[in-house]
């Protein structure tokens, strides 16, 4: 019997990462450099969390006997970084069709929900959280209305365990406002303009239909349901944010004026040209989820550093914004590079505190989860991590993460393979066992 148990344990050791149990005792982190986000960066105050919540920040916090104390002198504590848009959990190997679940067929999918397809055992998840990204806004893609997005915690046994909040937003791809002039596009200019106008009309019709649907008496025996329109009702009533993907200045302006006319609360995702529309965005108080600082300028004649400095321009103009990776599925495995998008913005003008805020608290505020996460504040979730240096610097590494106070398994596929093949060269005498 004993032998069998040992055997099982040895499997466990070489196994996949195991979701952490609920926080069982209070934890006190001492002597760290605290990046509170909401109240600056301070050296020294302790932070205490219990039952998944931060319960105190300060010097000389009173603790109970069962408190686990971790001295983290010289190390940094940050709230969990938030990826503001990806298909994490909805894809595994993007080139393999069977592993893609982020794009439902058809144009209007207002009824589909991201979190129900989130695969908590995706190998991409532990790799992502290894660099401090502990929360991910998971969005469906494709079509005019891809569906409803969710914010997921990057640890848990099931998608239900992992869901921090659902619904977060209805998602929409704004029609292309520019003519497509690639030689392979056989459509004439006139047809394209008609198509664009038709797309805009369709959006209006959809929302008008949803309004009409909303007024129907659902108890009437005549009533017939329509899940697509049903799903839009929360957007129309202003309860659910509408995130509109729009990159060019024409798309952004068109989307904003449309939302004002429709009286709908929106955020802009992408926002490549948002720096060209700052006055409008500020005036209408529309936030921007700025995608991919690490990209090339959109136009040949733009400044070489345009994507790098756009966050600074938004900040200076008083536009609310957060920063995220490219939402292209190709980039989903690389969400761990999120802090380097923020740090490039810093090298090109954005204040470092603002940069870290743009991947934590600003994101939480825009997505409506700042009551739980985004900063180190009493009462918020103990979703945070310890790093051995400035997280905006590539050379730093995350040592330990907590999600809702749960101590996360920091292993991942990459570390395991690294260990495995290091072992190969130790066996062969090429590397020494340190």
């Amino acid at each position, binding site marked *: 019997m004993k032998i069998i148990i040992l055997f099982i344990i040895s499997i466990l050791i070489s196994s996949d990462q195991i979701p952490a149990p609920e926080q069982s005792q209070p934890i006190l982190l001492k002597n760290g450099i605290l990046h509170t986000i909401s109240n600056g960066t301070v050296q020294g105050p302790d932070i205490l969390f219990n039952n998944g919540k931060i319960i105190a920040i300060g010097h000389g916090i009173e603790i109970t006997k069962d408190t686990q104390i971790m001295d983290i002198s010289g190390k940094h504590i940050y709230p969990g970084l938030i990826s503001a848009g990806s298909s994490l959990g909805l894809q595994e190997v993007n080139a393999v069709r069977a592993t893609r679940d982020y794009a439902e067929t058809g144009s209007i999918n207002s009824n589909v929900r991201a979190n129900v397809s989130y695969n908590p055992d995706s190998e991409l998840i532990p790799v992502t959280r290894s660099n401090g990204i502990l929360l991910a806004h998971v969005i469906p893609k494709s079509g005019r209305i891809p569906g409803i997005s969710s914010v997921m915690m990057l640890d848990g046994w099931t998608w239900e365990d992992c869901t921090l909040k659902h619904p977060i937003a209805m998602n929409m791809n704004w029609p292309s406002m520019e003519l497509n002039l*690639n030689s392979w596009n056989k459509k004439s200019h006139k047809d394209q303009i008609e198509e664009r106008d038709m797309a805009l009309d369709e959006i209006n019709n959809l929302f008008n239909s949803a309004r009409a649907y909303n007024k129907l008496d659902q108890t009437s025996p005549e009533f017939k349901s329509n899940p697509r329109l049903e799903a839009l009702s929360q957007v129309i009533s202003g309860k659910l944010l509408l995130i509109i993907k729009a990159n060019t200045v024409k798309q952004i302006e068109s989307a904003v004026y449309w939302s004002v006319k429709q009286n709908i609360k929106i955020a802009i995702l992408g926002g490549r040209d948002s720096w060209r529309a700052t006055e409008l965005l500020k005036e209408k108080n529309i936030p921007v989820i700025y995608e991919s600082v690490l990209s090339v300028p*959109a136009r040949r*004649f733009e*400044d070489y550093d345009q994507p790098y400095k756009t966050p600074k321009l938004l900040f200076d103009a008083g536009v609310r914004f957060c920063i995220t990776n490219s939402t292209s599925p190709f980039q989903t495995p690389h969400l*761990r590079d999120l802090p380097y998008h923020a740090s490039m913005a810093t*090298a090109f003008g954005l204040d470092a505190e603002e940069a870290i805020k743009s991947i934590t608290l600003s994101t939480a505020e825009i997505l409506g989860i700042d009551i739980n996460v985004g900063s180190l504040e009493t009462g918020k979730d103990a979703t945070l991590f310890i790093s051995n240096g400035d997280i905006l610097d*590539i*050379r730093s590494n995350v040592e330990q993460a907590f999600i809702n106070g749960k101590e996360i398994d920091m292993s991942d596929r990459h570390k395991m*393979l690294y260990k495995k093949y*290091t072992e190969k060269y130790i066996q062969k005498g090429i590397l020494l066992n340190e």
Partner: protein
Amino acid sequence: MPKILTNIILLFQISLFQFLFSNIKPITNLQEHQPDVFALIHAKVQLNPVDIIEDATIIIRGSRIEAVGNDIQIPRDAFEIDLTDKTVYPGFIDSWFEYAQPDSLQNHNSHWNSKVHPEFNSGNSPEISKKQLNEFYLNGITAVHIVPNKGIFRGESAVRLLNSNQQNIENSPTQVLAFETFGWGADEYPGSLLGTIALLRQTFYDVLWYKRAKTAYKSNPQQNEPIRRNLSLESIQSHLDNNGKFIFRTGDEIATLRAFNIAEEFGLNFWIKSNGYEYRRLNEFKKKNSFFVLPLHFQPKPKVSNPQDALSYSTTKLKHWIMAPKNPAILDSAKIPFSFTVDGIKKKSDFRKNLINIVQKHGLLKQTALKALTIHPAKKLGLENQLGQISEGFLANLIITSGDYFDKKSKVESVWVAGEEHKLAIDNSTHFNGAWTFIGFEKTGELIFSKKGGSLYLDEISIPLKNINYSRHQISFTASLDTINLNGVSQFIGNIEKNKLIGSVLLSNGNTAKWNAIRNDFEINDRKPIKLNDFSMPILYPEGAYGLEKLHQQPKIVLVKNATIWTSGEKGILENTDLLVRNGLIHNIAPNITPPENAIVINARGKHISPGLIDCHSHSATSAINEGTQSVTSEVRIRDVLDSDDIAIYRELAGGLTIANILHGSANAIGGQNAVIKLRWGQSPESLLYKNAPQGIKFALGENVKQSNWGDEYTTRYPQTRMGVEQVIRNAFDRAIEYQKQWQIYNQKIIQKAQIDKIPPRRDLELDALVEILKGIRKIHCHSYRQDEILMLSRIADDYGFTIGTFQHVLEGYKVADRIAEHGAGASTFSDWWAYKFEVIDAIPYNGALMHDVGITVSFNSDSDELARRMNLESAKAVKYGGISEEEALKFVTINPAIQLGIDEWVGSLEIGKEADFVIWSGHPLSTMSKCEQTWIDGTQYFSIDEDLKLRERDKKYRSEIIQYILSDSKPTTEYLKPDTEHSHKEHGCLEGVGK
């Protein structure tokens, strides 16, 4: 000239004419010989582009001009035509008229490739339709250079007279070539420009071989297998033997440079059918002593009135719209000869309109325009004694106009082609349009007819004219003359008599009255003349944003002081140290160097200096990436398709990159030859090449090669498995060895001066490259992911006795690092990419560090125009993942890739004697907070943030000026210029799905 001699010459020419045009068909009805001697008298004659004579006579006999001049006796048998007030020009020549070739041109003696059909002769091309003839006549065109429209070697052209016989007067003046491809995704070769150029080169080599092979066979038929006849090679060969010309159809100025490279390699007599971009690289073209056929087809106006729409146009594209009509005058100022073509113009009458426009507004001299339409093409086509001038003995090809051809009010009234007159339909309204003094109803007024209608001014009141109808001599119209107390509608008729209209009017009461009108001298303009802003802007290299007005010059001495220098060499990191550069080389690295006289001194206190960064895997600066149609394409070369105008070059310089290994894609097992370039922004494609770099070639393994992610229809090209990939590569090397042996035997005989009775081996560009690999002088850079395939290729290399240069990507390299190290290959990998396709599911960011620890020379590469802008930060990931020291990590993007590319003797580290490629960073080069401030190549500054700010200001100003200029052109338009997509036109690179 004594008259008797003239007559002898004439006699000879007439007999020539009879030879050309004699009719072998029997007469079946009555003979209908029309008079064929004409005297055109009292004409103003433009004899040639320079000389004009007034009140001259032209005698035409048969198809030719018998005499021209002022004191010509009119032969008794001549039919006289009075051309008072008319101008006569020599008939124009269209230098490029494409006709539709038949779809299938292959037969059993053709070239294997369906785009190679040089034997096709345009002499038999179909008749030009009546409608087309008329369009040519309206522009004054009387002869055309007809060219085939399909393929790479398209066939031979011909010159055709536009008379009723459509007589060809010159067969095969040129062989027509074009950069045509089957396009990406095609299964027929070539699918890209890479393959097209390789095919052009191989075909010329085949011609050379074919000739020798035939000779060898003829002298020794018993010793040899008969050679299969190849009409294509024969036709090129005979064209070359006759010193025939080649005309190359190109898209832009870079394509033209590519054509010149081919011309130079084979010593061809070469012209260019261009697309009007010559002004951009004029200096390159001046040297080439070529001839250009220019389009007069200009693109519609850009839509810039809405500033947001204007964003979709690059400055380059906007400026070209302005520059295109100026291009001919610019070429002329550089003394480059050219001719024109109607080709590309949709509405053919725009040809003359556009020509007049560039003469009137864009500085082209009339004389040059005439040369381009007459004597230049005539001379180039070998017809300088027959076409292009009005001169004795020349073909009677003439244009009769009502005035100056370059005045848009003049009409082309008729053209003569080889002695045949073709009268053109006349718009009757032109006889009447204008202002007339009206006399009638006992009043004097003004009568005006224009395209828009007409009006009668009487008593200073304008009366509109309705129902205006014109015939050759008569005009009729109606008007309501209530203002002079004549009720109802009055019906007018006027007959023209020289400058007078003699008219009558039927009034509403049935009475008739008389009126007449005398033509006024002044003209009526329908439209206000368009006044354009002045436009003067320097040419930039390359055109558009961040282009240079003057190429960067290398300063003699540069001293950078007080920096922290990351040498990537034995000296490690040196603080507070100076770097002295002389003539582009590192002269000294030491503290406190005294500035030499005339040195440029840069104070870099607090800053860091690193070697110029090197990207070992890039697809920037190239117009084509993959020749994916065959599994082995080692004959294709990236150097043939470099694009020096790619903005990625400038953007990468701004990130500290100085050298990039431009690789073929990974669509096939054995891809094309690489090009190592220095990012010398502003220079021509050839000047980007880094001459010290050994040759290389791209290989690829795995999913892309076996088309796993290309889509469901790609399941038949060999190979479809990794097993097959191995076999393709082994087979290619076996073929190369066999080929090498043939050459060894042949060369041995040459050396021994032994008799050669066998057909010599054929030079094969594909196998040449593979032989170079076997000889160890061409490095393989192999796209690879999985450990099995890495191991496999390393075993092939061992078996065939060469060492692989680098494994590229090599994301499972960490699994077989011991084997890679043992073999001696380098590893050039991504810092942290994974999971984008199945074969990279085991990729780990520790790959670089682990391979390094096992003893491999490791570099990080970009494979991306974006990542290539921040390679220093990529190297920091070697510190993060695997704990490589900072000094060693930076080597992943400096000396290590230099070693891998075989250029570490000259670049990659900052050491005395090496080339001064370096970067000045605002701080620690591995810190995300640092910025690249200056980038130097060969001791020459190619980027600085200060200079960049100036360029931004300049470009903002230029762009506004360009847009203002376009807005000042008030000419209405219904069609707009297509915006450029901004994203480069490149094919796929290496990463996702399709064979990148």
